[in-house]
């Protein structure tokens, strides 16, 4: 790795240190507990499903692997012809079995999703009740899997729901994701824009649909 020239680094740091020698007027540092700012989440699954609706996501709760596989097949067969990109993980291999031979499948171990793929299927690091979000990382099929296709399907367990964003970020630290994964993302719905007259339009640059299949047990 070539080391880059950094002629101003020391100069800038010196200026900062010099500047900070004069103390800023203090602010009130009375601790503010998080529970004071946000209402603690009482019913994580109920809240997650409600927030998914707010975020214009689709969420289905299934009882077991067979039902998840059936749901996935239903979703994918309704899509137009074309490649489906899947994260190469045992859990996804399991629920994608019924699709073999029926749709053209490309696994994450064979490279990144192509620009023309119809959908991607990935796992998640966690789900966040407070904001109806999917916590994703590079390990969940890579960076492009959650933003390149028109439809992104996320498969996970009800037990993966954490109450709030702070809990999700604690989990990121506990799992060592900053070191293990070059990308970590909290995804809260389909790609959208309101840049034209503040009118909400889905499917700006990324997926028009974000679907979560949540399995109990």
């Amino acid at each position, binding site marked *: 790795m070539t080391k880059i020239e950094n002629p101003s680094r020391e100069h800038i*740091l010196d200026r900062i240190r010099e500047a900070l020698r004069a103390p800023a007027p203090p602010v009130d540092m009375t601790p503010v507990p998080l529970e004071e700012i946000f209402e603690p989440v009482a019913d994580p699954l109920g809240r997650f499903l409600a927030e998914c609706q707010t975020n214009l996501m689709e969420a289905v709760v299934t009882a077991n692997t067979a039902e998840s596989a059936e749901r996935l097949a239903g979703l994918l067969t309704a899509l137009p012809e074309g490649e489906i990109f899947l994260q190469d993980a045992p859990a996804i291999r399991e629920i994608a079995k019924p699709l073999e031979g029926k749709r053209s499948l490309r696994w994450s171990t064979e490279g*990144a999703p192509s620009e023309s793929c119809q959908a991607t299927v990935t796992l998640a690091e966690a789900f966040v009740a407070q904001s109806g979000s999917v916590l994703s990382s590079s390990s969940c099929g890579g960076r492009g899997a959650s933003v390149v296709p028109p439809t992104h399907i996320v498969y996970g367990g009800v037990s993966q729901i954490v109450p709030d964003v702070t809990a999700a*970020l604690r989990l990121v630290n506990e799992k060592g994701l*900053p070191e293990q994964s070059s990308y970590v*993302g909290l995804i809260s719905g389909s790609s959208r*824009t309101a840049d*034209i007259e503040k009118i909400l339009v889905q499917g700006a640059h990324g997926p028009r649909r974000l679907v979560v299949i949540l399995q109990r047990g």
Partner: protein
Amino acid sequence: MSTAAREFHRKAAEKAPDLVHRQVIQRNMVSYDIAVDKAKGRFRDWQAGRRRAQQIKWEAINNLDKLLEQFEAKILERGGHVFWAADAQEACKYVVDLARRRGVKTVVKSKSMVTEEILLSPALEKEGMQVWETDLGEWIVQLRHEPPYHIVTPAMHLSRQDISRLFREKVDPTIDTDDPQKLVAVARRFLRRAFFVAEMGISGANFLVADAGMVAISTNEGNARLTTSVPPLHVVVTGIEKVIPRLENLGLFWPLLATSGTGQPIITYSTLIGGPRKAGEVDGPEEFHVVLVDNGRSRLLADPEQREILHCIRCGACLNACPVYRNIGGHTYGTIYPGPIGSVLTPNLAGIEEFHHLPFASSLCGACREVCPVRIDLPLHLLQNRRKVAESGIPGLAEMAGFKVWSWAMMSPQRYNFFGALSRMGMRMVKALGLSGSLLDPMRPWTKYRAALPAPRQSFRELWRKQRVVEKPE
């Protein structure tokens, strides 16, 4: 008066009475206000959230050297690069040299106000590179060859008919719709090609997370996700003040930024990037660079009284709340950062000589302070900038002498009465002669656009003396 000040006055006089402009901005602001109220309702205590945010940013800015070094060490460990740029020129040169070395022909950019500040796109274009803004609003103003109107909503000043016409002229002559859904589809198709041919992606950063050594970037469209995932080279260009100490702080800052920025509970893609693609990862850029831009920020840091201006998270709430911004519009300011935050920041970053008028582009109503999610005392900093202007001697001898006379007159009741009576008489005479608003009217700056003020026959003192009923103590 500086050139910037003259331009400002000219454009403000043009925009303020423009009813079409007012209607477009009004429509935007009404939807914004409704959304923000709703999003604030998701907090148990919004004020507690603001207090906590202020504490975190205070801690970050007052430990800036340590936190930046902590952030840098992590990025370097992962094989990323960190470049420290003292000014705009140094930052641009680094990115342009890098692009040239890698043979870059097309660059995709996700929204970044710092790149606007350092004029990065023109620098790359000068080298013959094609640069595409990928945020829809930014792309629209790029096609119009104009700067962003607003730091969060760059095309706020345009109606869908304006945008439809623009796309027909610049993108596809067959476009015959002003349906936002279809216009977005036009942008999507066009920019998709750009994403997949670009050799370099440039993004900004909403936060630099010191303990995790990660860059936090928020976009709703997912354009920053594509910018940072598809091209083989990712460059982050950001200000040194964007640091927060801990990853967990985003548990507050993500909802806070979304609430104040657009009235959403959280921005759709709230993303963290810590380095280039790691071995075994499916995709991602091979190279990752962070350019930390000073460009006047350490000078502002050295002023303890104004240091908190660097707490700003660029949510744009103070622009939306500002009655001056709502009337004169974003382009009138002629600065990268408009509105209240721009008026406190610009004279400090770009020089008070050129931007001496901005601290006065405010009624000091305090709406900006009330909405600021990190509780920056914006009116205080506007006043401090006014003091800097006065001390610099920029207002000129005539104004200085005027205030000398004013304070002399104020110091004695007799003088005050005398001059008061004189000016009331003068005002009545001007009105009686039908000269209101004419060049002979000393009140012309006011009466040029407004009805003349009714001049009272008697002063408050005289009324008080005549009408006061002395209440006897019981």
